[in-house]
C-alpha cells in the first residue's frame, strides 16, 4: 500500500464494505434521485403557465411554513428554481442520513460488534477502517451527483443547474460523513453515534429554517444552509461547495487525530462504573423497557420541544411575510387563518416525527430479539405478551408525550407572542387530534414485528416514509385518491384549521388497537427469530 502501514488494507476493506452495502447504497441514491424526478415532473405540470408560476411565487414567498421546510425562496420565477426550492432540503436530508448510516456502520458499528478487532489483528493498519468507511461514504455522496443531475436532465430541466443541485446534495452529505467520523471516535456505542449525529442534523435543519424565514446570516451556520446556498438554476454559485469540502477535510483530520488518542473499542468519553445492584424499578418487562428506552425518549422529547419553540416563533413571520407581499392577498385568505394553516402544517410534521419515534421504539423490540437479548428474558416467568407490551406501552406513551411536548412548546411561544394565554390550551388540544394517527403508525410497526419479523424494520420505516411523502406532496401531485387515503394523516382533521372529528379519530384509534392485537397474537404464535 502506498499510504504507509497505518492505512494498510484500506483497499480490501473498501471492497468488503461496498459488497456489504451493495443493496443499501443504490437504494438511498435512487431514493434521492426519485425525489428530484417526482418534484420536477409535478412542478412542471402545476406551473405550466407564467400566471400559475407568478401565483406560486407570490404565495410561497409569504409562506413561512414552506420556507421553514424547504429553503431560501430564490429563483421562484422559473419552474426549475421552484423545483430546487421545493425538494433540495429533503434530498439533502436523505443524502445526509445515508452518509451518517454508512459512516457509522463501518466505523463504530463494526467496532462495537467486535469485527474491527478481528480485522485489526490482520495486516490492517490503525487508520484503515476509518479511511475505508469515509471512502465508501464519500463514494456514495459522489454518486448522488450524477444521479440527481440525471433526474433533473431526464425530466427536462437545464443541465447546468441539475448538475449543481446534485453537487450541492453530495457536498452537504459529505459534511455529515465528516461529522459522523468525528462523533464515532467520541462515543463507544453506535446507537449514541446515530443519536448525536441525528441531533446535529436536526439542529442544522432548524438553523437553516430560522435563517431562511428571517432572511438572515443564521443559514450560514448550517451545513444544509451551505448546500442550499448554491441556488441552482438561478444564481448558480459554486463557492458553497468548496466550503463544504474544506470543512469535511477539517473534520476528517480531526477524526484521524482523535483516533490516535483512544484505544480500540473505547470512546473518548470514559465509561463510568454502573450500579452494583438494580434499582427496584427494574423488576418487570415494563421496567426493563422503560430503562432501555428512556435515553432515546428524552432525546426525542427535547428535540421536538426545541423544534416546537422554533415553529411557534416562526408563526409571527407568517404575518410579516404576508404584509410584505401584497400580491399574495389575491390568492390567500386573511392573515389570521393563514397563521392557523401554518400551525396545522407544523402540527402534522410533529405527528410525522412522533410517528417516526414510535416506529423506532417498537423496532427496538425487534433489535432485542435479533441480537438474542429477548431469549433470556422470555426464558423467565415473563410472557411474550408482557414482554412486547413493555416495548409497546413505551412506544405509544412516549410518542404521545413527544407529540404533546412539541404542541405545548408551539402553544407556549404563541401565548407569549400574542399575549393570549388561551393559545396554549388551544394548540395543545389541537395536537391531541394527531394522536390516533401516530398510534396507527405504532400499531403498524407492532403488527409487522409480530407477523413479519425479518422484514419488519424495512416495512415499518417504509410506512413512515410513505406517510411523509404523501403528507408533503399529496397536494402538489396528481395521485389517485387511494394513495392519499392509505395514510392515517389523511383521515386526521387538520387542527386547528379543521374541526376535531370524533368519528374519524375513533376509527383511527380502533384501527391502531386492531393492529396492536394482530402484532401480539402473531408474536405469541411464532418462533423467536434471530438475526
Amino acid at each position, binding site marked *: 500500500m502506498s499510504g504507509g502501514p497505518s492505512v494498510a488494507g484500506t483497499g480490501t476493506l473498501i471492497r468488503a464494505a461496498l459488497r456489504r452495502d451493495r443493496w443499501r447504497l443504490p437504494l438511498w441514491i435512487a431514493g434521492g434521485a426519485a425525489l428530484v424526478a417526482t418534484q420536477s415532473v409535478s412542478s412542471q405540470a402545476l406551473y405550466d403557465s407564467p400566471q400559475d408560476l407568478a401565483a406560486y411565487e407570490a404565495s410561497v414567498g409569504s409562506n413561512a411554513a414552506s420556507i421553514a421546510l424547504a429553503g431560501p425562496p430564490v429563483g421562484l420565477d422559473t419552474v426549475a428554481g421552484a423545483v430546487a426550492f421545493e425538494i433540495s432540503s429533503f434530498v439533502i436530508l436523505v443524502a445526509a442520513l445515508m452518509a451518517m448510516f454508512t459512516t457509522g456502520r463501518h466505523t463504530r458499528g463494526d467496532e*462495537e460488534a467486535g469485527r474491527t478487532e478481528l480485522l485489526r489483528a490482520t495486516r490492517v493498519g490503525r487508520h484503515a477502517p476509518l479511511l475505508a468507511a469515509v471512502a465508501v461514504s464519500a463514494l456514495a455522496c459522489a454518486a448522488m451527483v450524477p444521479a440527481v443531475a440525471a433526474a433533473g436532465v431526464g425530466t427536462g430541466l437545464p443541465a447546468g443547474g441539475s448538475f449543481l443541485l446534485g453537487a450541492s446534495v453530495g457536498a452537504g452529505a459529505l459534511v455529515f460523513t465528516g461529522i459522523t467520523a468525528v462523533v464515532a471516535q467520541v462515543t*463507544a*456505542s453506535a446507537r449514541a453515534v446515530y443519536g448525536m449525529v441525528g441531533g446535529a442534523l436536526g439542529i442544522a435543519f432548524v438553523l437553516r429554517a430560522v435563517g431562511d424565514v428571517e432572511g438572515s446570516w443564521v443559514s450560514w451556520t448550517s451545513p444544509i444552509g451551505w448546500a442550499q446556498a448554491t441556488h441552482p438554476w438561478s444564481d448558480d454559485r459554486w463557492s458553497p461547495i468548496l466550503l463544504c469540502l474544506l470543512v469535511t477535510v477539517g473534520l476528517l483530520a480531526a477524526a484521524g487525530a482523535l483516533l490516535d488518542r483512544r484505544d480500540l473499542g473505547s470512546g473518548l468519553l470514559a*465509561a463510568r*462504573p*454502573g*450500579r*452494583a*445492584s*438494580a*434499582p427496584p424499578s*427494574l*423488576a*418487570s*418487562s415494563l*421496567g*426493563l423497557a422503560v*430503562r*432501555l428506552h428512556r*435515553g432515546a425518549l428524552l432525546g426525542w422529547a427535547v428535540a421536538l420541544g426545541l423544534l416546537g419553540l422554533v415553529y411557534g416563533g416562526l408563526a409571527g413571520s407568517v404575518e410579516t411575510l404576508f404584509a410584505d407581499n401584497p400580491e399574495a392577498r389575491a390568492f390567500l385568505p386573511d392573515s389570521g387563518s393563514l397563521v392557523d394553516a401554518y400551525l396545522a402544517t407544523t402540527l402534522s410534521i410533529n405527528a410525522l416525527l412522533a410517528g417516526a419515534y414510535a416506529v423506532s421504539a417498537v423496532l427496538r423490540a425487534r433489535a432485542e430479539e435479533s*441480537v*438474542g*437479548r429477548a*431469549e*433470556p*428474558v*422470555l*426464558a*423467565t*416467568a*415473563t*410472557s*411474550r405478551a408482557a414482554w412486547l407490551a413493555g416495548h409497546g406501552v413505551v412506544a405509544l406513551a412516549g410518542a404521545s408525550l413527544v407529540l404533546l411536548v412539541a404542541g405545548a412548546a408551539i402553544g407556549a411561544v404563541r401565548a407569549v407572542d400574542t399575549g393570549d394565554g388561551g393559545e396554549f390550551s388551544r394548540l395543545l388540544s389541537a395536537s391531541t387530534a394527531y394522536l390516533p394517527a401516530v398510534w396507527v403508525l405504532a400499531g403498524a410497526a407492532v403488527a409487522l414485528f409480530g407477523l413479519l419479523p425479518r422484514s419488519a424494520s424495512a416495512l415499518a420505516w417504509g410506512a413512515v416514509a410513505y406517510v411523509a411523502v404523501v403528507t408533503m406532496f399529496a397536494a402538489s401531485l396528481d395521485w389517485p385518491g387511494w394513495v392519499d387515503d392509505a395514510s392515517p394523516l389523511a383521515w386526521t382533521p387538520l387542527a386547528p384549521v379543521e374541526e376535531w372529528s370524533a368519528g374519524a379519530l375513533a376509527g383511527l384509534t380502533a384501527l391502531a388497537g386492531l393492529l396492536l392485537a394482530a402484532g401480539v397474537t402473531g408474536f405469541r*404464535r*411464532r*418462533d*423467536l427469530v434471530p438475526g
Partner: protein
Amino acid sequence: MTSVISISGLVKSFGTARALDGLDLDVAAGEVHGFLGPNGSGKSTTIRVLLGLLRADAGSVRLFDGDPWRDAVGLHRRLAYVPGDVTLWPGMSGGEAIDLLGRLQGGLDPARRAELLERFELDPRKKARTYSKGNRQKVALVAALASDAELFVLDEPTSGLDPLKEAAFQEEVRALRAQGRTVLLSSHILAEAENLCDRVSIIRRGRTVQSGSLTELRHLTRTAMTVETARPVPGLAELPGVHGLRSDAGRMRFDVDTDALDAVVGCLAGAGVRSLTSTPPTLEELFLRHYGDAEAEGAGPAAGAGGVPAPAARS
C-alpha cells in the same frame, strides 16, 4: 423416578434445513443429565423448543407436567436458564442484569448472589459493554444459580470460563445435585460430562444416537495410551480390546477399549513401566469411530476402524 423432561420424536425445521430429526431425550428428577453433541448437532435448538421459544413441528415435548409452548410462563417459574451465547444490555451493569433476570424469574437470594459473585470473581459494577465472553457467561450463571429453581438448563455454560472458574462451576453443579435439583447440561466436551453427569444423551444431526449412564457408554470409548517399559511386553497386541499398537524404540502407543483397561494394566505390570500417559477419550473420537461423522472427519484418519457397529438409539 419421575421425568422432568420428556421428549420423543421431536422434529424442527428451519426452511428446508431439518435441525431436529426425531430427537428423544429423557431427564429424570434429581439427576445431572449431559446433553452431548458436536457443534451444530441441534443442542441449542432442542433447548429453545424446551423453553417454548421455538415451536415443535412434530413429536411430543413435556417439561415437568406441562407443554412448554402453551404453559411457558408457569413452567419458567420452576427453571433457570443459561444461554450458550450470553448477550447483555450494553449500558446496564452486570449486577443490574443479574437482578433483573433473577426478579423476572421469581426472585433470587441476596446472600447466594453475593457468595456467587465472590466465587466467580465478577465485578457487578462494570457495564456489560466492557465484559468479556467469560464475564457475560458469569452474569447468566450467577443469576441462574442464585435462584430457587427446580431445573437448571445450562447450554455450554463453561465455554468462556477459565479452569479455576470451571472447577467452581462443577462444584456448584454437584451442590445442586446434593440438594435434589435437576440439571440439563449441554456440552461438546465429553470429559466435562464425565465429571458431572449421572446420565448422558448423545445427539448427532438432530437425532439421539446414545443415551444412558456413563458406565453403560464406557464400551463406546477408548483411551489412548503411550507406555515405555524396561522389557518387551509379549502378547499385548493380542489382548482383546487393544487397537492399533505401534512400537518405536521401547515406546508403545495404542488405544484401549475402556472395559479392557484392567487387563492391559495387568499385562504391563510385570514389564517394568518407566512412563505411562493415557489420554481420555473425546467426543470427537467417539463420533469418528462409531459414526464416521462428517463433523469429525477433519480430526485425522480413523484409527482402528473395526469393531463396534453403530448402536441403535435407546431412550
